[in-house]
């Protein structure tokens, strides 16, 4: 088992929501607060409700998500899952707008079926991969990982997918393959952020990311097709995305259409936009601040309202140092941030 947490973050009992309350929170909230607020009958409950936004109501019908068959993962000791509603309504996916709720609002029409991924470059057997077939082939497993955004907030998310390394091996990387380049779908008709520099935050699309080959082949690196037991919603990168738990979230490129194995370090979108703020490696590192904010701690987005949010120390390599620190032995991580 690779998911070890030697230094679990201590989370007080008070922060853990009882499962019954958690599962029932929409009804409880509705009963306590919002209905009462509308009726003007209970201002105090209304105020409490204000601080517990747990039932986002998207304006459009949510894209259908299919249940997946997978080996269940275990929640590492000391971790609490981020509620699904929060993980699916607080996203960075600039192709659908730069606001945190824009992706959930504007991505529900994304056509994710059929979807093929092309794997090419320094491989002996270049080819395509049909995502529906990949899911049907089985062997999916759940990985419950910390997710640390470069913006200094974090979540704990149950991903469902396959080890990227196992998938890539099927295409037989050659000895010249030293890096892996990833590319998101480029379809301005479906992705309004790609059509307008204003909506898309000025990123040069398509979004591209990259890993060193040893990072890509590392058993923690996941090619995810689902979260919380079902296929990915579009705002989280449907139908196929990358998850590299020891790196900042922006490395987890979404809605991938192309993977290219290459000899030289590929360009990456955020690095191109602001090279002094975002490096190629982007390993979670509390000792190296973003130029505009501290990376020493993070807001964990867990159960409860905004008043339950706690700041917790950020761990080197996001807590996966035992597994991955050796990949960077001898490297100056302040320079290669």
């Amino acid at each position, binding site marked *: 088992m690779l998911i070890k947490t030697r230094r679990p973050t201590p989370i007080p009992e008070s922060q853990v929501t009882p499962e019954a309350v958690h599962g029932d929170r929409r009804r409880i*909230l509705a009963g306590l*607060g*919002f209905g009462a*607020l509308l009726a003007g009958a209970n201002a105090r409950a*209304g*105020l409490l*409700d*204000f601080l*517990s*936004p*747990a*039932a*986002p*109501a998207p304006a459009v019908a949510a894209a259908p998500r299919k249940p997946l068959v997978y080996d269940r993962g275990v929640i590492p000791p000391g971790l609490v899952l981020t*509620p699904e*509603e*929060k*993980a*699916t*309504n*607080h996203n960075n996916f*600039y192709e659908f707008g*730069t*606001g*945190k*709720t824009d992706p*959930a609002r504007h991505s529900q029409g994304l056509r994710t079926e059929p979807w093929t991924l092309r794997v090419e470059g320094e491989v002996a057997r270049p080819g395509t991969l049909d995502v529906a077939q990949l899911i049907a082939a089985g062997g999916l497993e759940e990985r419950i990982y910390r997710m640390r955004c470069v*913006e200094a*907030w974090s979540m704990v998310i149950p991903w469902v997918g396959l080890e990227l390394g196992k998938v890539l091996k099927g295409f037989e990387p050659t000895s010249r393959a030293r890096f892996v380049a990833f590319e998101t779908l480029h379809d301005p008709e479906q992705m309004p952020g790609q059509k307008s*520099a*204003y909506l898309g*935050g*000025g*990123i040069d699309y398509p979004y591209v990311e990259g890993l060193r080959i040893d990072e890509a082949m590392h058993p923690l690196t996941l090619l995810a097709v689902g979260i919380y037991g079902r296929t990915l919603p579009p705002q989280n990168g449907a139908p196929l995305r990358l998850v590299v738990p020891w790196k900042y979230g922006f490395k987890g490129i979404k809605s991938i259409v192309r993977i290219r194995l290459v000899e030289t370090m590929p360009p990456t979108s955020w690095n191109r*936009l*602001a090279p002094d703020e975002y490096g190629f490696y982007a390993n979670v590192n509390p000792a190296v*601040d973003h130029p*505009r*904010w*501290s990376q*020493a*701690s993070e*807001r964990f*987005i867990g159960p409860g309202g*905004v*008043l339950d*949010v*706690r*700041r917790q120390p950020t761990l080197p390599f996001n807590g996966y140092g035992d597994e991955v620190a050796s990949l960077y032995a001898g490297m100056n991580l302040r320079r290669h941030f």
Partner: protein
Amino acid sequence: MAGAGRLALVRGLHVAAHLGAFLPLAWLVVVVPRGALGGDPVEELIHYLGMGALRLLLLTLLVSPLAKGLGFGPLLRLRRPLGLWCFVWGCLHFATWLGLDLVFAWGLIGAELVERTYILLGFTALVILAALAVTSLPALVRRLGRRWKSLHRLIYPAVLLVCVHFWWSVKSGWIEPAIYLAIALALLWWRRGALWPPGMRG
């Protein structure tokens, strides 16, 4: 227009200014529970409150050119409610960052205020706005006399600080902050005579 009609108009605008600044805050209480700002509304709240403060600041600065352009002096009375509401929105913006983003981690707050120049700029603007808010008490306006006017000219550097603070704070994209900065510069350009009094011209 008759004098009474004009006064009624100003009174109406006064009420509109108060409602216009207050209702978007009340709106938050209604929509945040429904998830309109996302599952974790902190970042959006900070942005919403900051943008509101900036817009109110620009509106405050728009009053004088408007009053002069229209030849309608009583309009100047709108500066006080707009400026005070700008301060309220700015305080809520700051308090949200303090309490919900950094969660009252005072050591971190102190370090961020000192180390992150864009935060320092925003904070400086808030301190200026605090000074202007306090000295807008009628008793103090009278007591300060001529000095009140020079003190309240600090709103000009404040709006520039806020615009740079906004530009610096965005993760990507410059179009929106550029628009706000352009509006601020236009409003300051209109006052260039006051900013650079004849006596100080070289």
